[in-house]
């Protein structure tokens, strides 16, 4: 893997004479540490509030004192949480599956095969990343409706896949450009065809890229409301984000119940991130280079 190493540069800010150098560095570390704690508190505080609030009943929330499991136990009767998490999971995993199935071979082709207009096609696909969802939402809705796909999950899955694919093509292309051609050629000389090489060499080598695409797309799709709201019209097929939105829009919304629902909805994305994070950091230098 080609890594661009920036040469170590002299830090311009260090004007002190040499003997004083160690203390400022240590102070710098503490300052950094302190800043990170502040940032962590700012980021985690909403979760804390969510957690605490969800552990109160409606009246406890309004009066401020005491804890109970009431809002958690009543949550399932207010909205079909289980069904909605399942819907979200189906939509999310199907879209990501399509995004990976298209992005990986496309990235391989763009980076390793020479064919006419490959650069142009690549640029066109990648430039689709710049198009904001809102700009194409209405035409897309019309299309999907005309195709009669707004009933089940299909419409939403296709829209998510279309939105995520340009990024995934881009990421896989960049990733494979860093994989030496010789590696694939070694496989081909060893007896693989192009599809064999894709399946038996490229796929395992691409695990970090697959993980990156999966995590980023999962978070994006799981947390998205707009597409789910528009393209999944059956109330029984609602994803969790839409469910929560409905809950929040109700006339007598229970804030603790909303918080409990929010935790359930936020948790999977966090778990996926934590689970795959290992591959995101690792792997990019799998020892391909020497």
């Amino acid at each position, binding site marked *: 893997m080609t890594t661009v190493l920036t040469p170590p540069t002299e830090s311009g800010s260090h004007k002190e004479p040499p003997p004083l150098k160690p203390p400022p560095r240590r102070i710098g570390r503490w300052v950094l540490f302190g800043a990170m704690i502040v940032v962590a508190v700012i980021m985690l505080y909403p979760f804390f509030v969510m957690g605490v609030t969800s552990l109160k009943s409606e009246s406890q929330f309004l009066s401020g004192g005491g804890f109970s499991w009431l809002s958690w136990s009543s949550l399932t009767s207010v909205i079909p949480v289980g069904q909605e998490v399942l819907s979200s999971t189906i939509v999310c995993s199907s879209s990501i599956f399509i995004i990976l199935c298209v992005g990986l071979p496309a990235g391989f082709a763009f980076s390793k095969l020479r064919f006419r207009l490959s650069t142009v096609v690549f640029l066109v696909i990648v430039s689709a990343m710049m198009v904001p969802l809102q700009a194409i939402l209405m035409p897309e809705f019309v299309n999907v409706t005309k195709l009669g796909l707004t009933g089940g999950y299909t419409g939403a899955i296709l829209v998510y896949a279309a939105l995520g694919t340009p990024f995934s093509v881009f990421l896989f292309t960049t990733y494979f450009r860093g994989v030496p051609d010789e590696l694939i050629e*070694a496989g081909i000389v060893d*007896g693989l065809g192009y599809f064999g090489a894709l399946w038996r060499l490229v796929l395992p080598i691409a695990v970090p890229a697959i993980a990156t695409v999966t995590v980023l797309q999962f978070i994006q799709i799981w947390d998205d409301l707009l597409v789910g709201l528009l393209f999944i019209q059956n109330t029984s097929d609602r994803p969790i984000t839409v469910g929560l939105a409905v809950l929040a829009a109700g006339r007598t919304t229970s804030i603790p119940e909303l918080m409990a629902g929010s935790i359930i909805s936020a948790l999977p994305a966090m778990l996926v991130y934590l689970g795959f994070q290992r591959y995101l950091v690792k792997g990019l230098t799998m020892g391909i280079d020497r």
Partner: protein
Amino acid sequence: MAEITFDGVTKIFGDNIPAVDQLSLHVAEGEFMVLVGPSGCGKTTALRMLAGLEDITAGSLSIGGTVVNNVLPKDRDVAMVFQNYALYPHMTVAQNMGFALKIRGQSKGEVARKVGEAAAILRLTEYLDRRPKALSGGQRQRVAMGRAIVRSPQAFLMDEPLSNLDAQLRVEMRLEIARIQRLLGVATVYVTHDQIEAMTMGDRVAVMRGGRLQQCDTPQDLYDHPKNDFVAGFMGSPPMNLLRVGLETTDAGVALALGSQRLAIPASYATSHHLPRVDGPGVVFGVRPEDVEVRDGSSADSLTTRVERREALGAEILVHLSLVDVGGDNAIVVNDSGAVVARPTKLVAKMGPRSGVSVGDHLDVRLNPDHFHFFDADSGLSLRRGV
């Protein structure tokens, strides 16, 4: 095991300049053929065409008597060792070595047995469970070799497999690769730009320049009878001294005009070589550094020189000599912008470690008259008859 034949093989990339131009070369069964030449001369391209990684523009290429121009790489049954080894990073050493066999659907037991055998030959047995990342450069090189030899392919193709190793390891692996190749007796095409590797490893050596084959011979023949001045200058370290000189007639017969000095050419060369006419365009005269010997006192067959530089290499000393009193054409000529465009005629001599020469000394040197080389001044082709 098979023979390999390049017949007028040409490769033209987009820019219309042939990277490999009309290459005709035959590699016999079990032969170790070295392709050598300067950077960009088309060695890698020739090898890649053989592996099937590059289309052939013209000509025909056959392995074991079958034309393979349109045969897919996977069906050619050749094994290639890449310059950067290209080990599969996600597999262990054993998996790397067994991969090709696994693809071909051999049973687990058989793969393990063959990998074990190859690992023993390459002394890799204790590393079989490691990933390439956790190996040293030399070990990775051996794994790359192992990946090739487990397959018992029709041919081995190696592209500068030693160029990423340090000098000592390179010497070691040079012997190792040659040993394994003899052991297995598989036709091998080995690409390098290192002429020492070429000389020591090859049964025959093919020298290329600018996509064209210059000469293909045994290392010794190549060294003793280079077909042109390029091969003469390329093979050997330090390279052959090549001087562009005129011919003159003296009392003793035909002589080389080296500035004001004259060096008699033994009469035998007039019959063994097509020497050009006296006072004509001249020739390129070649003599190897080891054929330049120091003499006590000047004589008819010696040249007077001055020591310009000495490089002690331990076992030998390279002495850079300039001919004294060269005058005329051979003196330093400086062009308008101050750059040197011609230097006084220089010779490099290889001397014993204890020869006490120092810079500025005047030496009389004799050029061993048995080992003169003459090349055409324009084409650079050897003037030896019958080549």
